[in-house]
């Protein structure tokens, strides 16, 4: 049975144990040095120990260092950005709980500078919105073309809401104009699809393949073998050299390149329509893309078959997996376009499964910038 003395004694022990477990708060220190240590984090946890020590010091700072920490995300890898985000969030939580005001003016200045890391700017926006929600709301109309996809999405949502209100008010032309404005700026696939559907309901035409930048004209060759999934690593002749006049031994006879054009809204290249549905096979698709300048680009692929993608003969990425879902922009492959003609080769393998959901042998590919805006082929222009 517990006695009062024993309870007191246990309470003392509990407090002692509590303090024994609580980490001693670090003193604030040179923010720049701490940020540098955090930005050095690399693969497989390299730099974590130093970053962890630096983080304690950084997070011990006050709100005066908030925008310095956010600016530390500029050019940082996404892991380092998360370390810095957590430091900023910790400072904000602690200082806000102590009744100190967020530096709204500094955050606004940071937010307005679009050279800063887009995610850091979004964080600045959310902090501003906590203390000055009206100010944040007023900023959104100017963010239709913002490099932050999150800010842009909110800005586009406002315009979509305006389109809905215009239509509800009987002003169809205004509604269409607002939807067109939204479509021009939207980068998120779901927003684009929603707006396109609304515009079509209003009798408007929308060229989705062009808007997304899907590649619709291809040359296709196959089928080659894929017994035991070995077609994925096998190097068939089109991988060695693309010769559109070439003829090769395929899985069941001689194979040649044939033209393929897709009219699918989302650029689906359905290889089954070329050969009738096949299993345990490999095919290649080839196209050319004309760039008006040297520029970085993303090749964004959707594919539920095993695949490889080459740009100008360089393998961008490969994935040996079958029938585990597919969506637009499923894989984002960074590449570099050269001025003039660029070659794109896609390898798509089909496996042996016979279930209904394993019939598809297809892919969709678009060329865009890092925000998802279509880069049109100069040839198409």
């Amino acid at each position, binding site marked *: 049975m517990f006695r009062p003395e024993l309870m007191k*004694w*246990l309470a*003392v*022990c*509990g407090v*002692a*144990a509590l303090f*024994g*477990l609580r*980490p001693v708060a670090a003193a604030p220190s040179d923010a720049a040095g701490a940020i540098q240590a955090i930005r050095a*984090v690399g*693969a*497989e*946890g*390299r730099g*974590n*120990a130093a*970053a*962890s020590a630096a*983080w*304690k010091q950084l*997070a011990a700072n006050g709100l005066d260092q908030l925008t310095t920490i956010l600016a530390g995300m500029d050019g940082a890898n*996404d*892991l380092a*950005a*998360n*370390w810095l*985000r*957590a*430091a900023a*969030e*910790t400072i904000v*939580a602690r200082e806000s709980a102590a009744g100190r005001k967020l530096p709204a003016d500094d955050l606004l200045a940071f937010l307005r500078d679009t050279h800063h890391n887009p*995610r850091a700017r979004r964080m600045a926006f959310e902090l501003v919105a906590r203390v000055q929600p009206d100010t944040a709301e007023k900023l959104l109309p100017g963010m239709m073309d913002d490099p932050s996809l*999150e800010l842009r*999405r909110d800005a586009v949502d406002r315009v979509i809401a305006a389109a809905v209100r215009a239509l509800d008010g009987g002003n169809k032309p205004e509604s269409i104009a607002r939807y067109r404005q939204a479509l021009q700026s939207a980068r*998120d696939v*779901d*927003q684009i699809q929603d707006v396109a559907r609304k515009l079509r309901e209003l009798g408007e035409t929308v060229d989705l393949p062009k808007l997304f930048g899907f590649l619709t004209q291809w040359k296709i060759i196959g089928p080659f073998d894929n017994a035991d999934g070995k077609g994925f690593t096998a190097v068939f002749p089109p991988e060695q050299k693309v010769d559109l006049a070439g003829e090769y031994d395929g899985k069941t006879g001689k194979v040649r390149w044939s033209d393929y054009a897709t009219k699918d809204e989302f650029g689906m290249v359905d290889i089954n329509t070329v050969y009738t549905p096949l299993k345990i096979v490999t095919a290649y698709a080839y196209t050319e893309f004309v760039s008006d300048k040297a520029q970085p680009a993303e090749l964004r692929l959707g594919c*539920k078959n095993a695949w490889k993608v080459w740009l100008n003969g360089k393998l961008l*990425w490969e*994935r*040996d*997996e*079958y029938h*585990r*879902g*597919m*969506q637009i922009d*499923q894989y984002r492959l960074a590449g570099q376009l050269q001025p003039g003609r660029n070659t794109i080769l896609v390898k798509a393998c089909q496996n042996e499964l016979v279930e209904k959901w394993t019939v598809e042998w297809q892919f969709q590919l678009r060329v865009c910038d890092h925000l998802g805006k279509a880069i049109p082929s100069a040839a198409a222009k």
Partner: protein
Amino acid sequence: MTKSTNHQSPITYYVLRIALIALCLAAARLPAADWMQFRGPHGNGVSDETDAPAALDAKSIAWTADLPGRGLSSPIVIGDRVIVTCSSGPRQERLHVLCFNAADGAKRWERQFWATGRTMTQSKTCVAAPTPVSDGRRIFAQFSSNDLICLDLDGNLLWLRGLTRDYPNASSSIGLSSSPVVVGDTIVVQVETDCDSFVAGIDTATGVNRWKTDRPHNRNWSSPVVFADKPGRQVVAIQGLGGVVTFLPATGETVWNRTNESANISSPAPGDGVLYVSAHGLVALQGDSDSPTPKELWRDFQLAAGTPSPLVMGDRVFTLGSKLCCGKVSTGERLWTLTVKGPFSSSPVAAGGKMYLANEKGVVRVVDVTKPEGGQILSELDLGQTILCTPAIANGALYIRSDAKLWKIVKPAAPQAP
């Protein structure tokens, strides 16, 4: 050489003694009443508590808290803290780790991160599918994007890993859900897909790999479990289409391996050194010191499970498919079945002879599983939202979450005397 001395003052003596006892109490601060990982302290769905709520109704809800995003992950409970993970945003790229007061549901802190890996999932699941784990001092939150986040109990960041950054093809387009476990100073993560797969032991202090082992390229959503395969030794077990493997957590060295196909959604359940695994029915496996393969103690095809993992409680093992089945752990003999409305994504949990079954429609049922003649539904509570998570039981309460809410469910307070 320094001579020992007994010249301590009485005050110093008592201070040292109190500190020593406090240290012992601190070490013992990993109480059985906490629920610090997927499927509880033993990884088999059972809490050691004896006093859990039986009669559920609307008054059983002690509090609810709003959540900022989706999640199939279970809450975990560390003392007076309830930890929950969520994912939000149009591409589920915002990851949340939240801490609530167990007493009143007030939010103590929240930390957000940006996903560094792929966030595509099948629509039913989401990026916050794996349940976080704690060693009592730290929280380790893994997401389907393969982000692994280590925080202290106050939300201070200790380290981060982006496992998809490190191993880019170890990702899935339909989502990952394996929940990590902690053994000593190693956290074990299991990331298995049709493309690249691995299991790794990661230093809890620094987030650096202690070891990493490639695994068969097979899709897998099950979670590792920790159990003592013999006195004084803890091993980690994982199952999947390639079979069941146990290994030493510190090194990854294989203890035993059984290559017969097993389920790749439900997780193994340990009990008294035996591992119960869904594999075309249920199979009971026990390590054999003379063999690299385990002994198959029994197999029973009637104890079939679906998505939920088996539950082991005393001398009974339970599986949940179209029915709740109860069998003997010694032989696999099926003792009784009980029809309970599903469907179930959530695994059953139990305490004090009462089992909690939460179906996808949001109905939580309490089943008395102590009667030899069969299970008896004691009560039910409709939470009105889709429930896919496995509940947690801690300190006399049940914690459960949806994509939008976290509930604490308790025994209704006894009416006060006038």
